[in-house]
């Protein structure tokens, strides 16, 4: 409790603040070097996320855009987006933050395409600052770019304009940002950031220090440490989380695995019988999702909706009247019947025959080292075999697996898509005919080779229209395609690992209060308060 005495267990002192919280890994590989360049996605240290902030923060659970460095935005026309920049924000070196910084940031990204992680300049034509307004002009209607543009981290002009080459800038000493935290100390074992007292919403930050700890590659020791309560939050896979973590301190140890990307069964749509929509649709009831979830995924995940959206977070986008949010029940009898009806009969020995009268056989590829995927594939293969298909399992290495998926060298395999907040990207990446390639060539992202004019039309509607109603209408059309044409069959949602400990701080997001997902560190930090209990 908050007795005011200095103790080992209580990290909160009398001032109503948490002294420090232990976080998990901080990125940067096994031998991290200081690097707070927010654009070096793959090598920056995660502390950069607490230093640099976006215009709007689109939280990952229900995809709400939270005003952040911008207080508001407005589509003045489908090709023009105007942000109102927040007043009174200061860079942590004391200089004021202005709209000019935003314009500078975008101009710099344009100049160095390697920094353009979101690809905003494929749409943008110009970014101008004017007073507290920033105006973004697009080459064509580009409503879908909103989440991308909003998410770009803004850097100070007075620092970065002096950087010779921002692509190789490590920003290692005293990085200047607007965020709630400043770098306190770094060594390859531990990275400490401390509270920025001048933060624009400093009143919401009740944590004095975040300590990130370098995790080992194997994760064994980390798991042990987590289970012993050495971390206040972490994001890792833990086998049997209940026994290993929660049960050790049921009062304080919690986890919440929000649904993420959709893991689907991809079928090679250029091959028979997968090119037959009726066949694909028949398979939607063929898979025992629950078994996959319970056995292969240890109950950590939930069944995916056939709609391609992540429910319940994105429920608002679903068209009305979709039964059970688009989750389709496992019903082998129905699958059997649907297949037979579609002209795929069984012969006397129980083999499912193709339209050419030959038994259908194909392979299911799954990376050998993804133990959980292999287990899931085993279950699906069992389901398919029960329906009379002759399915062989193939276990290439993950790299080979990815390559074969991209080049279309497969019959059936798992693929991951969607799960983000950009509805356009969610559907466009896997389904847009512009994003595919002939078999043998690497597809950009449409690895199933779905080519459908109707889909493309809906996608362009979704891409361009700033109007929410129109967008929803387009999504409804795409959901309909997903439900009836069945380009792929979603099975489960990848879990966003997130464990937290309420000993020192509370206010973590969870199923009851899903204000963001566990990975939205910036948002979560503003919700944390010292523990009241114990």
């Amino acid at each position: 409790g908050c007795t005011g005495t200095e103790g080992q267990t209580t990290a909160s002192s009398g001032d109503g603040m948490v002294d420090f919280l232990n976080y998990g890994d901080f990125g940067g590989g096994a031998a991290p070097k200081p690097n707070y360049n927010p654009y070096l996605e793959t090598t920056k240290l995660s502390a950069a996320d607490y230093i640099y902030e976006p215009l709007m923060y689109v939280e990952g659970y229900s995809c709400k855009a939270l005003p952040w460095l911008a207080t508001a935005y407005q589509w003045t026309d489908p090709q023009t987006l105007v942000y109102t920049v927040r007043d009174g924000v200061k860079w942590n070196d004391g200089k004021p933050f202005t709209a000019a910084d935003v314009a500078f940031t975008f101009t710099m990204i344009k100049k160095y395409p390697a920094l353009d992680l979101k690809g905003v300049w494929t749409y943008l034509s110009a970014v101008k600052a004017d007073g507290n307004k920033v105006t973004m002009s697009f080459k064509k209607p580009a409503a879908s770019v909103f989440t991308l543009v909003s998410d770009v981290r803004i850097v100070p002009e007075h620092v970065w304009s002096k950087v010779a080459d921002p692509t190789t800038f490590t920003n290692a000493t005293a990085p200047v940002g607007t965020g709630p935290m400043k770098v306190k100390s770094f060594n390859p074992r531990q990275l400490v950031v401390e509270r920025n007292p001048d933060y624009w919403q400093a009143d919401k930050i009740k944590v004095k220090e975040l300590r990130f700890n370098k995790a080992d590659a194997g994760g064994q020791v980390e798991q042990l440490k987590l289970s012993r309560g050495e971390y206040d939050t972490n994001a890792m896979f833990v086998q049997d989380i209940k026994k290993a973590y929660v049960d050790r301190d049921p009062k304080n140890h919690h986890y919440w695995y929000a649904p993420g990307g959709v893991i689907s069964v991809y079928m090679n749509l250029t091959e028979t019988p997968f090119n037959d929509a009726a066949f694909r649709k028949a398979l939607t009831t063929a898979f025992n999702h629950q078994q996959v979830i319970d056995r292969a995924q240890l109950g950590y995940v939930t069944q995916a909706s056939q709609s391609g959206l992540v429910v319940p977070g994105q429920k608002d986008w679903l068209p009305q009247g979709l039964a059970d949010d688009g989750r389709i029940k496992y019903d082998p009898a129905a699958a059997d019947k649907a297949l037979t009806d579609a002209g795929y009969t069984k012969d006397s020995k129980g083999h499912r025959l193709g339209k050419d009268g030959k038994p259908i056989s194909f392979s299911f590829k799954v990376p050998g080292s993804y133990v959980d995927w292999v287990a899931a594939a085993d279950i699906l293969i069992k389901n398919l075999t029960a329906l009379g298909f002759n399915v062989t399992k193939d276990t290439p290495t993950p790299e080979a697996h990815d390559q074969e998926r991209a080049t279309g060298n497969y019959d059936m395999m798992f693929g991951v898509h969607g799960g983000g907040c950009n509805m356009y990207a969610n559907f466009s990446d896997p389904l847009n005919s512009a994003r595919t390639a002939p078999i043998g060539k690497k597809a950009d992202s449409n690895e199933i080779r779905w080519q459908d004019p109707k889909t493309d039309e809906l996608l362009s509607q979704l891409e361009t229209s700033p109007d929410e109603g129109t967008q929803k209408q387009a999504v409804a059309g795409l959901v309909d395609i997903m439900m009836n044409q069945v380009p792929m069959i979603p099975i489960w949602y990848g879990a966003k690992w997130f464990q937290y400990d309420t000993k020192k701080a509370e206010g973590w997001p969870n199923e009851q209060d899903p204000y963001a997902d566990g990975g939205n560190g910036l948002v979560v930090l503003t919700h944390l308060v010292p523990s009241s209990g114990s």
Partner: protein
Amino acid sequence: MTTTPETIDTEALRVTALDADASSRLPGWFVILWRNGKCRVGMLMLAAFIVIAVLAPVIAPYGPRLDEFGASEGPSAAHWLGTTARGEDVFSQLIYGARTSLIVGLVAGVLSTLIAMAVGLTAGYLRGVVDEVLSFFINLGLVVPVLPLMIVLAGYAPVKGLGLIIIVITVTGWAYGARIKRAQIITLRTRDYITAAKFAGDSTARIIAFEIVPNMISLIVVGFMGAALGAIGAEAGLAFLGLGDPQTVSWGTMLNQASLGGALTTGQWAWLVAPGLALALLITSFTLMNFGIDALSNPHLRED
């Protein structure tokens, strides 16, 4: 002291015992090994492992990948060593695992030892240009980047599963042994009895195999033990890298899965300890046999 009749008697007894020994049709090397008590224990242990491996389906109570039991259970009457995080029976996996581990260990061990011997001994024995060329390959073998090579081999090799693992391990593992053996043979090749064998008209291969190898059996055995151990370990490592067949059950993969499956965090000691112990016991059986190997290459030692 004069010889008493008894001592003469015991000697006579010895002679008959020896006659009986000679009449049994066992190969000489086996007799030599069998005589050594420790070696005998080692051979019996190894035999036991082999029997277990061969009879795995009979001995194991369940299939190794049957995952119908409660997950992460501790040892019980039904599951002597508990169950895995996926609800498989650990004991059954241990029994079946003996198969893979033995096959990989022995086959890859033997193969890489053979290659190492063929290359190393030829190089060291012939010297000159042959040596230079073979040494070139040995050196290459020593420095090829093993990790990516494994990945590449796994990606392109026509065989998969156990065969692939054995190939990968053999290809990457022979050079070290070859190097050591080459060094050793250089000191042996100038002995008079080797020259004598040349006078007897023996071919180079034969001289190496029948004159030199018996004199360096102990070194070869050490090499083999190292290779076998390495192979068993590498098999686990490969599975870890995703190059193995995840469906194969071996002690290595068991260990991997046990530690990945949180055996440490959930306190399932049996799952974690059993395969490690089995592995150590298997190698210990080799070491025990090593005590008898001395006598093979050094006849002086056959007498005790």
